[in-house]
């Protein structure tokens, strides 16, 4: 009982987020299918679900992150959960959801790949494109996992900024998340490099070095959240 309180938070938050994710993926899949069957715009191949969903999935995670402090943290602490248990519970749920959001597009992409072989679709599907640009399927999955988790943490950062310091300082936290996005792009999308205060040295060469850099940033963000939620007064 005593050591399991954060697991109670994790299961409550995770089940809530999964419910929204299922809606999210259903809608996204419908849009993708509409694009394949009706809005395919000619003979050129269309990207598979994995590539198609990446951007939206990150934004979805950002939104969930932004809801964290108000919808999850406050509500759970009001039910007698400590800030510490709330932090670990939400963190665990976010990691679990990131895994889910990585696996689902992969599986849908795989199914599309198999279906494409028996020519179910009216247009060619490029289900492999996401995996060629990095170092294969595992690497693409790791990259997506770290990206969505980073977006969640960025949202959480904005949300705790507003929750704790109100709206003027909240803007400062938004600025902070732009730096997070910039660093994230610097690591994962050397082509879309957006920070001009860092020397431009593409890291394309080594996937694992990039992953390591990304993991370090995720760790720093978790640490920041731990510190920011540690003694936060609860809004009534």
């Amino acid at each position, binding site marked *: *009982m*005593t050591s399991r*309180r954060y697991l*109670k938070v994790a299961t*409550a938050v995770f089940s809530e987020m999964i419910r929204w994710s299922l809606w999210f993926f259903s809608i996204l899949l419908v849009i993708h299918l509409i694009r394949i069957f009706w809005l395919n715009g000619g003979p050129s191949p269309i990207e598979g679900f994995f590539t198609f969903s990446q951007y939206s999935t990150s934004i979805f995670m950002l939104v969930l992150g932004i809801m964290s402090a108000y919808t999850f943290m406050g*509500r*759970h*602490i*009001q*039910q*007698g*959960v*400590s*800030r*510490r*248990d709330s932090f670990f519970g939400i963190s665990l749920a976010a990691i679990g959801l990131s895994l889910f959001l990585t696996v689902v597009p992969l599986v849908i992409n795989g199914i599309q790949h198999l279906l494409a072989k028996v020519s179910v679709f009216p247009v060619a599907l490029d289900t492999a494109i996401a995996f060629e640009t990095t170092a294969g399927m595992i690497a693409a999955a790791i990259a997506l996992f770290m990206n969505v988790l980073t977006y969640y943490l960025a949202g959480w950062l904005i949300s705790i900024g507003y929750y704790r310091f109100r709206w003027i300082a909240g803007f400062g936290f938004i600025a902070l998340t732009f730096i997070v996005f910039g660093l994230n792009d610097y690591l994962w999308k050397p082509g879309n490099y957006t920070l001009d205060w860092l020397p431009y040295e593409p890291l394309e060469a080594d996937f694992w070095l990039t992953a390591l850099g990304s993991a370090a940033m995720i760790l720093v963000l978790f640490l920041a959240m731990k510190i920011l939620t540690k*003694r936060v*007064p*609860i809004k*009534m």
Partner: protein
Amino acid sequence: MMAASVQLNDVTLKFKKFEALKDVSLTLEAGKIHGLIGRNGAGKTSLLSLIAAFREPTSGGIFVDGSPVFENPEKMEQVAFVYDKDYKEETEKAKKLIALASHYRPHFDMDYAEQLIKRFKLPVNKPVNKLSKGMQSAMNVVMGLASRAPLTIFDEAYLGMDAPAREIFYKEILKDQEEHPRTFILSTHLVSEMDYLFDHVVIIDQGQLVLNEPYETLEARGASVTGAASDVEAFTADMKHLNEQQLGGTKSVMVYGELDESKRREAQTLGLEIGPVSLQDLFIYLTEEAN
């Protein structure tokens, strides 16, 4: 008995320059119903939010069953704080919020919750922000009562409830206290309506403790004197009047201060009736005096 005691040692809470609580020291015994009374802005909610570990005091210590409560998972779990929450943005159904409470509260009794839902006629399948104010309060009360938290705090939890619903609320507190004793703190300014619930009374005003006593000894703080108008007036001439009422030739006066044995005998010979002072009158007097 699943009841928790509360202790505050020299607690001060400041918001920038405003002092919401000034050096409050207080012990609330386990297993009792404590009434926390104060005017609007007296610091009731600030005090309760500290006990519920919603925030930290600027200085001083807050203990539940002898342990500091802030960020103490064992203790926080035992404190249920029910207050007038803003549910404008709450689109979840009442059922779901009640389920969340049962997920976290170790002593939560779902059967009891369902019984209460029926008594309050709470539409649990409606989104909370679509419920009337009174029904939102009823939902809060259901969560607080059914939590059976060893320390259950109701901070003006009755807001928006109509008189019959408030009556159900008060009766349920007494009934459940008999079967499953715990510590209650009921904050209110509806004093005359709730005073019969209290075992112990705490009055605060402008962030300071004004009174902290068992309900029975409060009676000695004053008295009501009833009888023939002229006799009552003569008898209470040199006393502090809190309140007076007259009906025809009969007058009733609330006085402040203890009536000694000789005074009581004098009243008896005059044919005057001596009763206990009402908490409401005492509250008004004590908080006016401080101003």
